[in-house]
């Protein structure tokens, strides 16, 4: 679980990148604006993961899996 709320890019992507070094099958990333949501999604997809986005109350929970 990566909490990147309030951080602007590229921080959320860097945090995700660092977390994903452990090469597990499932991660969750929490962000609170559209740009990091898009960027983290793009990054995860480029690493061969699938991303599901859940939006609630202005926050985006990204479920990254493979």
């Amino acid at each position, binding site marked *: 679980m990566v909490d990147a709320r*309030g951080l602007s*890019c590229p921080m959320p992507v860097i945090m995700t990148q660092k977390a994903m070094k452990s090469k597990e099958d499932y991660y969750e990333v929490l962000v609170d604006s*559209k*740009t990091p949501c898009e960027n983290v999604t*793009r990054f995860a997809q480029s690493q061969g993961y699938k991303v599901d986005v859940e939006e609630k109350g202005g926050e985006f929970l990204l479920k990254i899996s493979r």
Partner: protein
Amino acid sequence: MAEKKNDKLLIIIAGLIIGVIAAGLAYLGNPKNMGFCIACFLRDTVGGLGLHRAPVVQYIRPEIVGIVIGAFAAAFVKKEFSSKGGSAPMTRFVLGFFAMVGCLMFLGCPFRMILRLAGGDLNALLGLVGFAAGILCGIFFLKSGYSLKRTYALTAGEGYWLPIVEVVIFVLLLAKPAFLFFSEEGPGSMHAAVGFALCAGLVVGVLAQRTRLCMVGGMRDLVLFKETRLLWGFIAILVAALVTNLVLGGFKLGFAEQPVAHMDGLWNALGMLLVGYACVLLGGCPLRQLVMSGEGNADSAVTVLGLMVGAAFCHNFGLASSGEGPTANGKIAVIIGIIVVTLIGVVNTYVKAEAAKEAA
């Protein structure tokens, strides 16, 4: 995957449109290779308001107003507008200040660097080398854990201030009260008609907001994530402006006698090094800061104020270069800037890490 391709196509199209508009503005009256320059235009605007008294660079640039309002409108419509801030505002002010010192050493922001390249100004190649080096310096800190910490939701009105200020500035331009300053010669006297300039700004503001276009983001993301999307925007602007310049006769290849430029390669490079360095630590180039201000980000608005105050100091203290070359004061300021930006990098990477360890 289809979505990913769309993404890239979108920013390429946006970049092409922006490149044509930028080259077109120079044709319609803006200084050569200066269809857009966020640094120069903020500098002209603070000059127009009388915050510096360099007589050749005073004019309220409607392009800036357009970019902020365009970004605001696009964000508002797409429900992406939100008032937030609180991520090291003074640090961002200082980074903005020194980014401007670097820009005015080189004579252009990263956006104008592209336009100068597209106009055949080879001095901008040295700028590009410095810019890339500066971005790498910034990336070193990003990789080591640099962070200005998170933003928070602020009171609803907070994010409206910069857009409001821009509207007020625009009204001043139209009303032309006697206390404003308008250059009668030099770059400040050269400008496209107000309507064209405003519309051009609006279009660029909307496109930049939708695509998250950023001139430092391109190289940064390539190095950090092997992500090329933003870089394609950068390249598209270059190609479109180059072709437009060739068609309209605005292309002149060489180092000598380039418009609003000097030939001191070392200081062109060091100026842009400072810009790239500061902008990576800020999270975006001056254009992106304007756009994020329009999205309600108060930290970016503070950064824009830093850029503006920096511009005023640059001319009041004789730090800004001219066609004749850099000034001694400007060189000292750029060196100080590189040191200060490095200190900001160190403090927000290592000192913070220590504090977190103690807390844990």
